[in-house]
């Protein structure tokens, strides 16, 4: 019996040692990678960028905002850190890591959709992409742990931080791609037959509408993270701009409920600017030639939207230049 227990203890020790060794090796590999959506390489890349304006949000931020159009004389360094398949939590976690390494930016452009501030299990599932940063920030750790009540136990393993990332990590290590300023241009136009078919499954915009009409309640945790971001911006004289980019065929009326909910947050009183393209540039939402699909603008659409956006934010940038203060880290504070 004693031999069996000895073997078992030895087995556990071997597993622990192997787990730590693999975790360390993977961490080393991860630090060398700065591209790849599946392994978190794009986070590494974003963290390396020193930017005056940082663009955050989902694929609708990544494909819609062109940094070279946005940049001005007073803010020449613009980086688009939007990420396909992710949303608000990704932005908040990235910003928390970013502000630990860089001076506060002059402006943060955060893309929001009607579902961005609602609770989403699938979003929580996907933010596992931040697992290599588990030890790097309290906020990242808190959000990662909120995925599951046993998540904390899983993170006792060093290798678990790289769960599902091994192959993409190796691939991006061997074959890295240049992410440039973060923006990715989409080619092509929304097919006409898709527009004509009212029940088309490709009408991804419908999901936004459905969620909007269901009256998503804002998630308390997400609101807390947004408040912390606002506080960080206030104390660092960073202009926070929230924007909602166009969805094909949608008008301001489609987002009425969401806008009412947003109004309760009293963003304007706290110095936050909100730009809704459904309201400010409704003509964009009805021009099929500007869209790749229902929710994504193509390169022409992105150019037009970025030009409109820069006109809207320019006054705030010049105002922002008046302030030069010491940086305060507020994001992780609750």
């Amino acid at each position, binding site marked *: 019996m004693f031999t*069996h227990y000895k073997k078992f203890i030895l087995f556990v020790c071997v*597993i622990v040692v192997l787990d730590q060794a693999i975790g360390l090796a993977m961490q080393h590999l991860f630090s060398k990678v700065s591209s790849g959506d599946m392994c978190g390489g794009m986070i590494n890349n974003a963290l390396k960028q020193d930017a005056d304006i940082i663009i955050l949000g989902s694929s609708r931020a990544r494909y819609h905002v062109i940094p070279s159009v946005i940049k001005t004389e007073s803010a020449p360094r613009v980086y688009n850190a939007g990420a396909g398949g992710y949303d608000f939590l990704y932005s908040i976690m990235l910003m928390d890591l970013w502000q630990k390494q860089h001076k506060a930016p002059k402006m943060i452009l955060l893309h929001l959709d009607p579902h961005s501030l609602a609770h989403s299990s699938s979003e929580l599932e996907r933010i596992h992409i931040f697992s290599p940063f588990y030890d790097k920030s309290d906020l990242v750790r808190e959000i990662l742990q909120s995925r599951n009540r*046993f998540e904390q136990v899983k993170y006792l393993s060093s290798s678990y931080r790289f769960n599902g990332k*091994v192959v993409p990590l190796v691939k991006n290590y061997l074959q890295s791609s240049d992410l440039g300023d973060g923006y990715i241009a989409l080619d092509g136009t929304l097919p006409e037959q898709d527009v004509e078919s009212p029940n088309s499954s490709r009408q991804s915009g419908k999901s936004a509408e459905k969620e909007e009409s269901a009256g998503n309640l804002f998630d308390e945790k997400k609101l807390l993270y947004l408040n912390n971001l606002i506080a960080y911006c206030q104390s660092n004289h960073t202009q926070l701009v929230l924007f909602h980019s166009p969805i094909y065929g949608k008008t301001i009326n489609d987002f009425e409920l969401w806008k009412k909910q947003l109004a309760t947050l009293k963003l304007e009183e706290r110095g936050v600017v909100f730009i809704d393209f459904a309201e400010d540039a409704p003509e964009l939402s009805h021009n099929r030639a500007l869209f790749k699909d229902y929710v994504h603008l193509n390169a022409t659409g992105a150019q037009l939207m970025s030009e409109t956006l820069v006109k809207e934010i320019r006054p705030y940038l010049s105002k922002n230049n008046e302030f030069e203060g010491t940086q305060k880290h507020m994001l992780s504070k609750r």
Partner: protein
Amino acid sequence: MLFNSFDFVVFYIVVTGLYFLLKHRHRWPLLLGASCLFYMAFIPVYIIILLATIAIDYIAAIQIEDTTNPKKKKLFLILSILSVAGILFVFKYFNFFNQNAAAIAAAFHWNYSIAALNIILPIGLSFHTFQSLSYVIEVYRGAQKAERHLGIYTLYVMYFPQLVAGPIERPQNLLYQFHEEKKFNPEKAASGLLLILWGLFKKVVIADNLAVYVDTIYKTSSHHSSWSLLLATYFFTFQIYCDFSGYSDIARGTSRILGIELMRNFRMPYFSRSFSEFWSRWHISLSTWFRDYVYIPLGGNRVSLTVNCINILIVFLLSGFWHGAKWTFIVWGGLHGLFLIIERLGGVLKQNLLQRLTRMSSRFAVPSLKAVYLLVVFHCVVLAWVFFRADDLNAAKTVLTRIAAFDGTLFIDPNIFQNLCALVFLLVIEALVLSRLGDRLKKLTFVKLGFGAILILGIVLFGADSGSQFIYFQF
């Protein structure tokens, strides 16, 4: 509570710890309580259905044993079968028959206004219903004594490792084990743990990762190329095997640690060289159930060839229908029945060919022919899986038509390389287990420890973290 969740890990550690701390007489209430908790973690109220099935069969079996009158025995058996099957019918099949009756009525312009039932199928209903039925039938046949201890009988039906997706145990194999006093056996525990790890690896590393590709392609099958659909179908073939056999391995492993042996449900079915061999290796507990309680009572092999073929078809149509109240499952079962009938009819031809090749004493002829048989059987099974996976018959038709076109480009998923590596690993391990080398390796402690370590690290690094359900839970 899913086997691939941390909740189950905690639950199982607590139950196992208490099980070995308690005296034998207190163990059945512990296992029963744990099983109730396990089942109620899904939809609590459905435990009433399970308890109703248990009550019916418990009373029926005692009545059957206590009655000397053969007619009364038969009456109790029929009553028990009808009531238990009735529950299964209401929850699983009513809407199917109702829907088809409505379609027929509409075709003939008749009035038909029976509303569909708005109910969710209780998890594992078909599994525990069949296990319960097997008990009453065995008591009727005199092969099993009626269990007088209500608690032990309830545990036989509700035993948590095999409650929701089998193996469908026979009373002769399971009931007596609850009466025996079990001591903690480190060797059995180690082997059980290894089985759990292997099952978990198959589920979370192979099945769940393959599912991502399969679901993407099958969800919009008409938009995908022949090659993508073909690959998705091959992937599904391994997904369902790893999903279900993974569950069975975890069930057997968890039970083995408690000292209770469950039957083996899979024996590397994709290495089969005939359809009858496939069915003696795939979902063994179900195929033997149909063999013992349907096929043999229908006459088995001791009837004319025509009747035998009809019996085979009946059994496989029923087997398909057991899986779900959908035409796709019936076609899947029917196809397997057809394959077996063709095999039965061509059996003499196949035997003659093998004998002739053996006589020719060519070194490669016989192995080559065996490889051909293996490939033919495998691809027929793959073809049938299209119906099993498709949402309806139209979707299955679309998939098959698109595949037959042999055009388009392959959709490359970022995980495709990892999936292919995992499949190679699976096939190597299974081939090793089948070989003599595997027998020798299994005896070496360091090999078992090394294999365990590989599985643990594989699960941690490559396992899908989504905690998805097992496919067979829906049956």
